[in-house]
C-alpha cells in the first residue's frame, strides 16, 4: 500500500484502508464491498479506529457530508409527498422543544383545584388578596453597597409604588424585621452584592410571611437599555405573571403579585412582567400603547433582571432555624434537563 491517503485517491474505487484490520476483513469478506464508486465499510468499522489524525479527520468530514446529503434528500422526498397529497397531507409535525418535552410535574396546579384554592384562601397572602392590606416595600442592600447596587435599588423603588430605600449600615436583619413590622411594612427586599454587582435577593413577606431567596443575574440599569422611554411615572403598574404552573410556582406568583397595589392605574399604561421560563423568572417593565385592537406597541423602561429561586422558607428570615419549604438542590435538576420546579 504505497499510496497515501489524500482526497484525490479517495475517489478511486477501492480506497486503501488505513487499518490493517480492515484490509484483512476486506480480503476475507469480499461480498461486503459494494459497487466501486461507493464507499462502504464493514459494519464494525468506525471512524474513531483510525489512528492517524489527519485521515481520521478527513473520514469524519466525509461522513458528515454523507449524512447531510441524506438529510437533504429525505427532506426533499417528504416535501414532494406532501405536495402530492395536497390537502390530504398529514398535519405538519411539531418540533420537540424542552417545553414540549417537559417532565410532567405532579404538583401542577389545576385551575379548579379546590384544595389549592382553600390553601390560598388561608395562607399568608390572603390578607393582601382580600384587600385588607396595602403593599409597602422596604428595599435595602448588604453591607457597604457599591454604586451599581445603589442605583439598582433606586430604580427598583421607582418601579414598585410605595417602596422605600434604606441603607443597611451593618444592621442585623433579625433586628430590622420587628421594626419593619411595627412601621407597617409588608415586604422586605434585600439585594445582596458581590464584587460590585448585585447577585442575590432576599424577599421576605413581613407579618410572618415566607422568605424567598433568589439568585439575581443579568441586571440592566436604565441607562444601559436601548431605545428606552422616559422614566416611569407614579402610576401603579399592571402585573403580568406568566407560566407559573406548579404549586411552588403558584406561591411565587402570589409573592410577586403582592408587591404591587391591587388596582393598577390604566391611565399610566405601565406593565411589570414576571415571566417564568425553565425556572428562570425574567422581570421586565414596559410602557404599552394600543395602536388598534389588534396591535400593541411596547417600550421598555425601567430595569430588567432575571431571578432564579434558591430557597423558600416558611416564616420570616431565619437562615439557621427556619423551616425550609423548598431548597434548590443542583443534583436533583442535573438528572433530567427537562425537569423544572416552577
Amino acid at each position, binding site marked *: 500500500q504505497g499510496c497515501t491517503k489524500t482526497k484525490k485517491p479517495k475517489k478511486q474505487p477501492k480506497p486503501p484502508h488505513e487499518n490493517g484490520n480492515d484490509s484483512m476483513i476486506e480480503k476475507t469478506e469480499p461480498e461486503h464491498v459494494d459497487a466501486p464508486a461507493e464507499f462502504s465499510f464493514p459494519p464494525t468499522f468506525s471512524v474513531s479506529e483510525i489512528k492517524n489524525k489527519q485521515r481520521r479527520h478527513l473520514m469524519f468530514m466525509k461522513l458528515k457530508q454523507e449524512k447531510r446529503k441524506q438529510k437533504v434528500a429525505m427532506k426533499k422526498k417528504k416535501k414532494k409527498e406532501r405536495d402530492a397529497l395536497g390537502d390530504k397531507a398529514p398535519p405538519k409535525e411539531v418540533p420537540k*422543544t*424542552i*417545553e414540549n418535552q417537559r417532565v410532567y410535574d405532579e404538583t401542577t396546579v389545576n385551575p379548579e383545584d379546590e384544595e389549592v384554592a382553600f390553601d390560598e384562601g388561608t395562607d399568608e397572602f390572603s390578607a393582601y388578596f382580600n384587600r385588607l392590606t396595602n403593599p409597602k416595600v422596604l428595599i435595602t442592600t448588604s453591607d457597604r453597597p457599591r454604586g451599581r447596587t445603589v442605583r439598582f435599588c433606586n430604580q427598583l423603588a421607582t418601579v414598585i409604588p410605595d417602596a422605600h430605600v434604606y441603607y443597611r449600615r*451593618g444592621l*442585623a*436583619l433579625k433586628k430590622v424585621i420587628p421594626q419593619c413590622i411595627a412601621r407597617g411594612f409588608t415586604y422586605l427586599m434585600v439585594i445582596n452584592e458581590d464584587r460590585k454587582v448585585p447577585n442575590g435577593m432576599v424577599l421576605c413577606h413581613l407579618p410572618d410571611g415566607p422568605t424567598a431567596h433568589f439568585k439575581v*443575574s*443579568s441586571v440592566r440599569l436604565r441607562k444601559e437599555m436601548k431605545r428606552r422611554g422616559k422614566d416611569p411615572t407614579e402610576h401603579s403598574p*399592571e402585573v*403580568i405573571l*406568566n407560566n407559573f404552573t406548579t404549586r411552588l410556582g403558584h406561591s411565587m406568583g402570589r409573592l410577586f403579585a403582592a408587591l404591587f397595589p391591587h388596582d393598577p392605574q*390604566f*391611565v399610566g399604561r405601565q*406593565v411589570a*412582567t414576571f*415571566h417564568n*421560563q*425553565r*425556572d*428562570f423568572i*425574567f422581570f*421586565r417593565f*414596559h410602557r*404599552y400603547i*394600543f395602536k*388598534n*385592537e*389588534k396591535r*400593541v406597541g*411596547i417600550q421598555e423602561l425601567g430595569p430588567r433582571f*432575571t431571578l*432564579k429561586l434558591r430557597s423558600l422558607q416558611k416564616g420570616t428570615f431565619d*437562615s439557621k432555624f427556619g423551616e425550609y419549604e423548598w431548597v434548590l438542590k*443542583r443534583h436533583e435538576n442535573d438528572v433530567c434537563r427537562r425537569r423544572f420546579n416552577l
Partner: protein
Amino acid sequence: MQHDDVIWDVIGNRAFCSFKVKTKVQNFCRNEYNITGLCNRSSCPLANSQYATIREEKGQCFLYMKVIERAAFPARMWEKVKLSKNYEKALEQIDQNLIYWPRFIRHKCKQRFTKITQYLIRIRKLTLKRQRKLVPLSRKVEAREKRKEEKALIAAQLDNAIEKELLERLKQGTYGDIYNFPIHAFDKALEHQDEESETDSEEEEDDEDVGKKEFVAEDEIEESDLSDFEDMDNLKAGSDEHEESSEEDESEEEMEEEPEASGSKGKMPLKGAVFRKKRAYVEIEYEQEMEPVPKSKAT
C-alpha cells in the same frame, strides 16, 4: 541525661530544629507547648527540662507542667491542671502550682492566660452578632447556568408574550371604556355576521339552483354571448338601472374571465341562474323601469 545547654546549642544555634521558623527579624517556635511562641533559650520547651504552659481546649484553659523527674517518661511528661473559669481564681491557681518556679515562667504563664481569656471573650461576643456565611461559587456551574439562562430567554419570546397578554386583556375588557377600540370590534363583529348571512343565502341559492340547473340549462343553449346575455337581462325587464348596470358589469367581467379560464363553462349558466334569481328578488324590491330598446324575443 538531660543536658539543656547542649540541646540548645545544637538545635538553637547550630543544627536544624523542626519547630523553628526563621524570618528576617526574628525566629519563631511552632512547638505547641511553647509559652511565648518565640525561639529563645528560655522559651524552648525542648531545651528546658522544667517548663510550664497554658493551653486552651474548647474554651477551657489548662496549665501544663513538665519537670525533670519525668523526663524519661514521655507519656507522662506533661502534668495537666484544669484552671477555674474565674479569672482571679485561675491566677491564684497558677501561682499555687508554680510556686518556687522561675519568675520568667510564672510571668509568662499568667500573660498567656490573660491573652487566652480575652480572645475567648471576643469569640463569644462575635457569635452573638451577624455572621456572614460565604458560599463558594463553582465556575463551571455558573457558566452552565448562564448558558441555560440565555437559552431560556430566547425560548421565552418575551415581547410576544407580553403583547399577547395585553391584547387578551383588552379583548376581555379589563380596561373598561378607556379605549375606543371595542366599538371597532363590535362593528367588525357585525360585518362578520353580515358576511356570514350573505354566504349562507348564496349557498342556499346555489342549492336551489342545483335543483333547477337542468331546467335552466335547456333554455340557455347559446351561451357566452354578450348580446344574448343583455337580451336575457332585458327580458327580465324591470329593475333598477343601477343594479342592472352593476350586475351587467359583473356579468361582463365574468364573460371576460370565462374565455380565459377554461373549464368554467359549467359556471356560466349557473351564474345566469343566480342572476336571474337575484333579479327576481330585486324586481320585487325595487321600482320597475323600462329598458330603452326592447327587442322582440318570444320566450
